[in-house]
């Protein structure tokens, strides 16, 4: 009986968004009478933190504090159309829609502020703390609240904006496959270290060390959430999960969590990661979608690490102890032959 150690790498890309039907999303922004901003969407939060990141984008684009920006989602009666949350598209498409809407709302905001301050709009700036002031003359300032009140009750103006993002639809050439399927590419590279027990076939993932290039980490903790959660899911996919243990046969498919194996706390590897930011051409503030990518690079990295450990490639997932033992047996008999 022995424990064999191995290291493997994988380098991957992940596209942001789709091309299907233009991949559209919309956002509406309006100010309340006292200068809070409501961003109305019909996008869904799956736990990745969409509402928070959208509020961050809106606040940054409007130049107002995060606390005064609220996300209202998802109600098809009030929210404008959104294609949905999948394909790593949401922050990119919805975020871009919010930025377009914020641009329109901010123009109205600055216009009214200019009137109130008796200045030109181009001479004004937001201070990010709820005020608008003349550049270089901080005493000439007015609160966003006062601007909103003035807009609503004196000027008769709405401080609102509409935004939409859509990608030009491109058909796929049936002969050559020429197409434009996505908007940008994020990248990840994982170095995995494993230990294989040659008596039981069990694989223990010792560590996953990865770099993720994400364009811009709009909320670093939420990016980390995708990294850690994705790494776990990738490891699970590589070593444990299947709905058909005798694929392609449909027999013995697990029906509950007892039989559908996923790693527990005791199986967690050491996870270390580094985030690179190389802004994309077209994402909000240069971001790239990462929600799916983070589960992808660990899978072949772990498989390649197992190859390094035992000298045989196991090319069928999940890499169960049974598969490891059979591979070791086959390679032993090949050596003996």
């Amino acid at each position, binding site marked *: 009986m022995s424990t064999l150690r191995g290291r493997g790498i994988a380098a*991957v890309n992940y596209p942001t968004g789709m091309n299907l039907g233009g991949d559209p999303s919309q956002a509406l922004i309006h100010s309340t009478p006292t200068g809070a901003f409501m961003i109305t969407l019909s996008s869904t939060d799956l736990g990745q933190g969409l509402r928070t990141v959208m509020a961050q984008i809106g606040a940054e684009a409007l130049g107002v504090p995060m606390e005064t920006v609220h996300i209202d989602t998802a109600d098809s009666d009030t929210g404008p159309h959104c294609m949905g949350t999948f394909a790593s598209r949401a922050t990119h498409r919805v975020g871009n829609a919010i930025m377009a809407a914020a641009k329109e709302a901010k123009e109205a905001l600055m216009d009214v502020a200019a009137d109130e301050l008796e200045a030109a709009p181009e001479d004004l700036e937001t201070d990010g703390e709820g005020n608008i002031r003349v550049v270089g003359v901080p005493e000439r300032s007015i609160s966003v609240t006062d601007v909103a009140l003035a807009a609503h009750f004196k000027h008769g103006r709405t401080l609102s904006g509409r935004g939409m993002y859509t990608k030009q639809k491109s058909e796929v050439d049936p002969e050559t496959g020429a197409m434009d399927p996505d908007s940008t590419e994020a990248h990840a590279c994982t170095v995995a270290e494993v230990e294989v027990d040659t008596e039981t076939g069990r694989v223990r993932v010792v560590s996953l060390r990865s770099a993720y290039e994400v364009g811009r980490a709009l909320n670093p903790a939420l990016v980390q959430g995708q990294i850690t959660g994705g790494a776990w899911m990738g490891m699970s996919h590589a070593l444990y999960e299947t709905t058909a243990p005798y694929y*392609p046969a449909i027999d013995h498919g697990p029906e509950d969590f007892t039989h559908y194996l996923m790693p527990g706390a005791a199986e967690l590897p050491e996870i270390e990661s580094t985030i690179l930011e190389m802004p994309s051409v077209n994402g909000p503030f240069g971001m790239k979608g990462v929600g799916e990518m983070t589960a992808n690079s660990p899978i072949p990295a772990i498989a390649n690490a197992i190859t390094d450990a035992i000298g045989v490639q196991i090319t069928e997932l999940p890499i169960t102890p049974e598969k490891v033992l059979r591979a070791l047996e086959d390679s032993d008999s090949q050596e003996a032959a």
Partner: protein
Amino acid sequence: MSDAKPFDVIGRSHERREARGHATGSTLYVDDVSYPRMCHMKAVRSPVPHARIRGVDFSEAERVPGFVTHLTADDVPKNVYTILCLIGVEPDEEQVLASERVRYKGEPIAMVVAETEEAAFEAAAKVKLDLEELPAVFDVEEALAPGAPIVTHWGSNYFVYEGHHCRRVRYGDAPAAREQADRVITGRYQMSPIEHAPVEPTGCIAKPEADGRVTVHTNTQAIFFSLDNTAIILQVPPHKLRFVGGTVGGGFGGKVDVIVEPLATLAAMRTGRPIKYVYTRQEEMQVSSTRSANRIYITDGINDDGTIVSREVTSYEDAGAYSRHTPYGCTKHAANAAGPYTIPNVSIDVHCVYTNRTPSSAMRGFGVTEASFALEMQMDRIARELSIDPWELRMRHAYRNGDERPYRKTTEDATLIETMLAAAELAGVELSADLRAMSSDDRGVPA
């Protein structure tokens, strides 16, 4: 690298506003909502993978105390479930409720509605199905071989892409380049179907409103996608429906199949009562769509200096019994099947294959997870056979900005090299000076 402009709000780890509600159990999910007079709906499903439906007998089910009504194919106004019809994908092949033939174990044939969940389960269990079993096929390559049982209704077990039997990418002349190459390295890579397994099961509540509209609380990942498909199936104007949600207890791509809303809404319209339809964990595990189990063959033509001169990929995507999102997934897979690498001759065939298995559909990484798995194992195989450093092999071939992808799009936002350099540093791997000098903007070191 990243520009130095300071931001006030982005770039900071703002706490999520719903986190407090999550940690204290006060966040409301679909199943937490309930209405007066609400009924429960459960499915009657095929116990076998392929069968002709001879009859459905509700007589015992109807006698269960609390039984309210049942739904069959005849009750569904447009009994066609082609979720990509909104973007013109044809043909129509999946039904909302099966009428003549079932093509996978678990396919819904009828729904029962009852006052309580227990009564609904009991009534569903008492529905008698008269089925004539048919031969079934489970393996993708067997499904494409002559003589295989045919799953679809158009005579072949594959999706037709504008006259072709697969999604194709053709760039340069891969077979010719392979002939000229010093050696050929092939690999066969097999994914497994896996479940999204969100901890919150798929579900919705459809509630009829006094003004004739229906409000549907749903944990769909795509509000309008679900609404529009429901409207088409029920043959009602979309504005008659109001879909609300936005708080999903895990999705991972498994809550975009619009699977519960149409029938719940139909039952609500029929009974005038709120209808709750939530998947059991068993349904989530074995009936709800899975990731496709791709079988991928890669054949690479390689010169002795390690240059990959040709890459041919044949991928069989196991769509299961019906299309769902797979015809699109195969296209996405095809775009990524040669990888983030610049290879002058590429040929890709992605077959969307039908088998008598649970339909596969979108899942986290749709089309790319499979490609990355196969490609990175293949790169490993090449590196071993040629005794080339696995970092070097990848970095030499990594696409640069300005390179043309096999699907003829000019690469921008390429950052694979920089990402690899950062990973190597983090992992304590010493790379040569040549590799460390590489960049995505410069083909400096000749491939």
